Structures are given as structure tokens and as C-alpha cells.
């Protein structure tokens, strides 16, 4: 009997522990958000969105980087999502696990996740800017970020696909479904929540990167809005970084203002994924 008591106690303790770990994350988040909001909120007004950057904090705005970030994240996801999910599908559904090539691809992908982002920048400069001649444009930036976040999407999609129960696949195969029909009809819907989680994390990463973009030539001062994927651009995190290295403290607060917008943009970009994820996860339960 004392055994049960002990186990219940462990369970209680564990419950509290994992609750606290979750709370820890939320607590840090609220501290960070509070800090950012405290400094940044007062700067957010119409001009903040309509002005370009300036050496005077009162006149500085985020028009160019806001549009730049929206462009970049949209194009990046347009490339990264299908490539990432497609790769994961190939690896989990189509490839032969015993083949050495498959093993190499799998190892290689999780290894890519550890390559510093700046190296992707150097790669992007070589391939997209110079070799393919896309110039120092949104397209080059987005493609570079695509390569950077692919491992996140691929690995998390792979894990999600792996978790689809065998019986479900078998049920579909037994109905004379082809592999692709099984994938489309059963595997993808079941694994979608996990795939979306990967995408959410990937979006967060892509939206916050600066180093590789600097390498491929994203500028910091730009007083016009990009109109096509071949235009020059700047992004919110670059503006944030630039402002926070300024000596004047008003710029640090301005940076906080830009971060607020960045986070709103992030939540907006994630909202679709989060809603879809919840919907599909419900179904699976």
C-alpha cells in the first residue's frame, strides 16, 4: 500500500515538475514579451509603418524591412514546404532503407541542420547570386533560407510520417490504392500535424535569420519597397540588429518596436499552420 502511495507521490511530484517546466518556458516568454512591449509599444504608430529608416529615431520606420520580410518568408515557404515534405516522403515512403544512398541522404539531412547559417549564406552567394545570376535579390535570399530551413522541415516531417500506424497504410493498400494514393489519402493527413510543427519552427527560423542574408547581400538601408522577387531588400531582423547596435538608446527601443511587429508577423504566418494542426490532431484522436 505504501508502494502505491509512493508511486502516487512520484506521479504528483512529476506532474508538478513537468508543469513547472512548461511554466518556466511561459514565464521566460512573458518576461521577454513584457520587456519588448515596454520598450517598443510606444513607438508603434502609423508612421512607424509608413516611414523608412532614419537617423532620427522619431522619424524612423520599418516600411522597407516589413515588406522585405513578408516577401522573403512567403517565397521561402513556397519553396521550402513542398521540397521539405517531398524529401521526407521520398525518404520514408519510397526509398529503400537498406540502400547506402538512402542512409547517406538521411544522415546528411540531419547533419545539414548543424551547418552554421552563415555557411548557407556563402553557398547561396556562390550558387544563387553568382552562378544562377539571380543577383542580390529577394529570390536569392529566399532560396538561401530555403536550403537553411529544409533540414528542420524534412526531419520533423520524417518523424511525423514514421508515426503513421501500419494498419492504416495496409487498409489503404488493400483497397488497391497506389503508393501515391496511400501517401496522399492516409499518410499525409495523418502526419500533417507533425509536418506543420516542423514548418512552424522553420518559419520562425527563417524569419529571424540575418547572417546569411547579409552575406548574400541584403542591404540595410533601402528607401523603396521591393516590387518583384528580383529586387533588393532588407528584413526586419536586420533592421532590429542594426538599430540595437546604435549608440542611442531610443534606437534600442525602436528595435523593440520592430521586434513586436516581427513577432506579430510570425504569429500571423504560423496561425494558418496552427489552426490546421489543431484540426487534424483532433481528427486523429
Amino acid at each position, binding site marked *: 500500500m505504501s508502494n502505491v502511495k509512493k508511486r502516487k507521490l512520484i506521479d504528483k511530484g512529476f506532474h508538478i515538475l513537468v508543469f513547472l517546466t512548461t511554466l518556466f518556458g511561459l514565464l521566460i516568454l512573458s518576461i521577454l514579451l513584457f520587456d519588448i512591449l515596454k520598450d517598443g509599444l510606444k513607438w508603434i504608430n502609423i508612421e512607424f509603418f509608413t516611414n523608412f529608416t532614419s537617423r532620427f529615431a522619431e522619424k524612423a520606420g520599418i516600411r522597407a524591412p516589413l515588406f522585405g520580410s513578408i516577401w522573403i518568408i512567403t517565397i521561402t515557404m513556397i519553396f521550402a514546404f513542398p521540397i521539405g515534405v517531398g524529401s521526407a516522403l521520398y525518404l520514408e515512403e519510397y526509398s529503400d532503407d537498406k540502400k547506402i544512398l538512402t542512409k547517406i541522404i538521411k544522415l546528411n539531412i540531419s547533419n545539414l541542420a548543424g551547418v552554421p547559417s552563415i555557411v548557407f549564406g556563402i553557398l547561396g552567394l556562390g550558387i544563387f547570386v553568382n552562378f544562377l545570376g539571380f543577383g542580390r535579390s529577394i529570390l536569392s535570399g529566399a532560396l538561401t533560407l530555403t536550403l537553411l530551413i529544409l533540414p528542420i522541415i524534412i526531419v520533423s516531417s520524417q518523424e511525423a510520417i514514421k508515426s503513421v500506424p501500419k494498419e492504416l497504410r495496409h487498409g489503404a493498400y488493400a483497397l488497391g*490504392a497506389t503508393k501515391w494514393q496511400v501517401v496522399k489519402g492516409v499518410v499525409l493527413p495523418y502526419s500533417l500535424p507533425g509536418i506543420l510543427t516542423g514548418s512552424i519552427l522553420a518559419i520562425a527560423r527563417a524569419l529571424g535569420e540575418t547572417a546569411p542574408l547579409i552575406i548574400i547581400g541584403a542591404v540595410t538601408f533601402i528607401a523603396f519597397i521591393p516590387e518583384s522577387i528580383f529586387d533588393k531588400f532588407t528584413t526586419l531582423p536586420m533592421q532590429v540588429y542594426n538599430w540595437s547596435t546604435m549608440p542611442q538608446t531610443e534606437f534600442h527601443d525602436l528595435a523593440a518596436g520592430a521586434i513586436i511587429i516581427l513577432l506579430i508577423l510570425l504569429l500571423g504566418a504560423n496561425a494558418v499552420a496552427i489552426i490546421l494542426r489543431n484540426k487534424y490532431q483532433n481528427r486523429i484522436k
Partner: protein
Amino acid sequence: MNIKIDVKNLDFFYGDFKALNNINIEIEENKVTAFIGPSGCGKSTFIRTMNRMNDLIDGTKHVGEIIYEGKNIYSSEVDVVELRTKVGMVFQKPNPFPKSIYENIVFGPKRNGIKKKAELDRIVETSLKDAALWEEVKDRLDSSAWSLSGGQQQRLCIARALAMKPDVLLMDEPTSALDPVATSKIEELIGELKDKYTIVIVTHSMQQAGRISDNTAFFLMGKLIEYGETSKIFSNPEDKRTEDYITGRFG
């Protein structure tokens, strides 16, 4: 009397484990063939070779031939996807897709290119009626198939297979999760279906085998011990082991 499926010298392996040992059997067209035998004897393994579901398990291999429509189903001439649309299957454990009831049924037909809503609706209704599930779910075709009871799920899986209008229907203990009323409906259905289809059914219930099957095959430890007309097998088995098994008091 036509032979629909002709199995010749079939061995089957899970890795090194030989689950089927030199099986020879002829499945007759428009008949119900029942497989009986103790748990683990290889009934599921065998029924799954007939539409090559075992291809999906890593490390399996076979020796021998299964002739269907004049061709060895393992030969390169035969397209496995096509094979499975003709040789349908219902599993031992219900395995509905995590989709709505409606989507579960139309999964197969849609793959086969049927797009019209009206036709799909009709297929859903007839299949569910055939599987004796229509009354229970007709008002909630859009709710998740996973919220059904175990027996309902199994009937849904049967309906799903019927929606494909298969040529041969393999059923691995389709009624083991069903109550008598639903079982009776399925059994009636099998009786009706056999005019058009060839049916192979794995069952634990001697009574069921006796009631619905024309031929019965008795398996033991991966071997086919005896095969023949059900009446013969049940009344006058040749093999002592068959007799022992059948005269067990239980079922």
C-alpha cells in the same frame, strides 16, 4: 467448377521464420472458402499473400506460385495495385482511416476515378447498408470514423471493401468483433455476395465456417492439413488432427 485462385507449393517466411509450409490449394470461383485453425497457425499470413499485402512487411519472402486469372500474382506481369482492387480485404483488427465515415467509404472509389458526388453518395449508402451499418451512422456520416465502437468500426471497414466491388473478397475474421445481429447480417451478405464474388474467410467459429462456407481448409503450424467440402470436413474429416480440432466443444 472454375478455379479462381490456384496456390502451388507456397512457402512463406518472416525473416528466417517459416510461417507457411508448402501450401497447395485451389480456391473455387463463386464459393465461400473458410480457413480454420488454431491461433498462430498462419491463416492471416496465408490470406494476406493472396493480395500480396505481405509485400509491405520488410524481410518477408515466398517460394511457389499463386495463380489468379491465369497468371502468377507474383510475376512481373501482374500489377499489384490492380490485383488489390480486384482482390479486396477486410482485416482482423478494424483499421478505419482517421477521416470521416463518408471519406472512409469513398476512399477506394475516388481512387478509381469516380468523382461525381451523387454517385459517391449512392456508393456510400449501398455499401453501408450491405455492411449493416447504415441505420446507425446515416445521420453522422461526417463524424470521425474513430469515434465508432469496435464493432461499428469493423463494419465500416467491410463497407469500405465492398465499395470497391471487388472480384475476390478476403476477410480475416471479419466478424470477430461483431455481435450476433451484425454477424448475422454479414453472414447473410456473404451468402448473397458469393453469387458474384469469390470469398475467402478466416474464422475461429466452427459454426460460422459450417454455416456459410462451401469449402473449408484446416491449417496447423503453417501447414494445410486438410481441404475439402465443408460438409465433408465437418462430418467426416480424414485427418485425426482436423477431427480433434473440429470436435472441440468450443466456438
